[in-house]
């Protein structure tokens, strides 16, 4: 019966309304993190190529301080991107909500925080690859190969329980495909705390590994 079909609005409008806009926008924006990671890789590998990393240490930076300064760069880039997404979200949300319910604006902001963590952890992962490989080209290739080939193969071959603990899956699962909701399917309604902890743990692990490798290598 035609009456049993849910009332589906096929325009983009519901996707851009508060509070849905936060989840939808951060999900889409998540795809662009690779472009920003390329900035991280290029900027850090050029520090090795031009010898400025070496000079910073000669001038008095400890290797810890040098890594913290690069994590600072990753944090700034993640923060900038998050603020941009918040700005776009507000513009879209206000333009689509006929009558704005202010409580709706602040609902599901956990997805914005998760987006910040997603970017930060991904950038620290890019930092780790760059410190390990030192060269721009090879770091970018390995980043792309792992993201799009190796981890999907691993995902496919591992049991489901382990899948979500692979690093890229952990980061990506902070915000899963949200648009199924508009055709009546169930989606995640909030960021999983456990997933967030795992993502942060990976960020810390990549940070520690970066420092360990930097300490072992000659600059």
């Amino acid at each position, binding site marked *: 019966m035609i009456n049993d079909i849910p009332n589906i609005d096929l325009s983009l409008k519901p996707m851009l309304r508060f509070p849905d806009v936060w989840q939808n926008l951060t999900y889409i924006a998540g795809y662009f993190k690779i472009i920003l990671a390329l900035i991280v890789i290029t900027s850090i590998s050029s520090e090795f190529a*031009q*010898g*400025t990393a*070496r*000079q*910073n*240490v*000669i*001038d*008095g*930076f*400890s290797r810890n*301080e040098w890594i913290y300064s690069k994590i600072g760069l990753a944090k700034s880039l993640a923060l900038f991107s998050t603020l941009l997404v918040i700005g776009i979200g507000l513009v879209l949300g206000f333009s689509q909500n006929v009558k704005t319910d202010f409580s709706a604006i602040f609902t599901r902001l956990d997805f914005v925080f998760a987006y910040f963590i997603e970017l930060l952890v991904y950038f620290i992962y890019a930092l780790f690859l760059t410190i390990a490989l030192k060269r721009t080209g090879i770091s970018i290739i390995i980043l792309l190969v792992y993201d799009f080939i190796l981890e999907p193969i691993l995902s496919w071959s591992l049991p489901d329980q382990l899948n979500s603990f692979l690093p890229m899956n952990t980061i990506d699962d902070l915000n899963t495909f949200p648009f199924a909701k508009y055709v009546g399917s169930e989606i995640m309604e909030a960021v999983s705390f456990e997933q967030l902890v795992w993502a942060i743990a990976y960020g810390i692990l990549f940070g520690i590994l970066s420092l360990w490798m930097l300490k*072992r*290598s*000659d*600059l």
Partner: protein
Amino acid sequence: MQNTLSVRHLSKNYGATHALTDLDISVKKGDVYGILGPNGSGKTTALGIVLGVTNATKGSYSWFDQGSSNYLRKKIGSLLDKPNFYPHLNGFDNLKLTADIKDLKHPEINKKLELAGIIKHAKRKFHTYSTGMRQRLAIAAALLGKPEVLVLDEPTNGLDPEGIADVRELILTIARDGITVIMASHLLDEVQKVCSHVAVLKHGKKLFEGHVQSLLSGNDGIEIGADNLDQLSSALAGYEGVDRIDRKSHTCLVKLKPGYKSSELSAFLITNGINITHFAQNKGNLEQEFLHLLSGSGD
């Protein structure tokens, strides 16, 4: 006297290659200390280790008798290998970054740029600098603040003759102010002109460490030429006051034993029928002694 730098049993291996083997050196406050050696002798490796960018395989070093922490490196002005700056920043901004790392609040950047002769180009981006200008900017960076010690690796690299003379004068001025200078170079003339102490390295091993003058005095001698060099050599070999004879292409360089005089030697040679064409006191020359050290060290 306080040690500015003491290095103990420092070794560095790259796989099977021994870049540095069991190096011991001591640099006292106020020394102008030259590290001399041919290319590949381990000079830059040694400086890289004491400046924290190369990990030693074995051994230790201590700055100002206080260890090797990065805070101590902030008191050191250094130019290692080649000038490394951010290419998209201008000279002034690059020096501001260096000052920030060194926690310098009033680094007098312009004054140092002027001292190094690069002030005119301070607002130009680093990537537009010539090799000489890059070297001068690196020297300005090394002079920021009031470093207790300057570490310079081939400081006149890429400079024109005027620049070389400027840097040499600058090093001497700095040394007169009591700042310790540690300088690696393969330019013997440069080291002889500015250094008070020297260490000679070859294949990562130390061959000599001490005063430059003590190294040179070992090579003071008399340069003698004659019509017949074979006759001269035989006559010299028969004179009891001769300590060492180095035969060159047209002369013999003779070192006398203590207590013997050159006038006695010339009288001896004339008595023995040698027709002397040249007889001159030869002051010690670092190049000669350096080559003598290297040739005597085997491999």
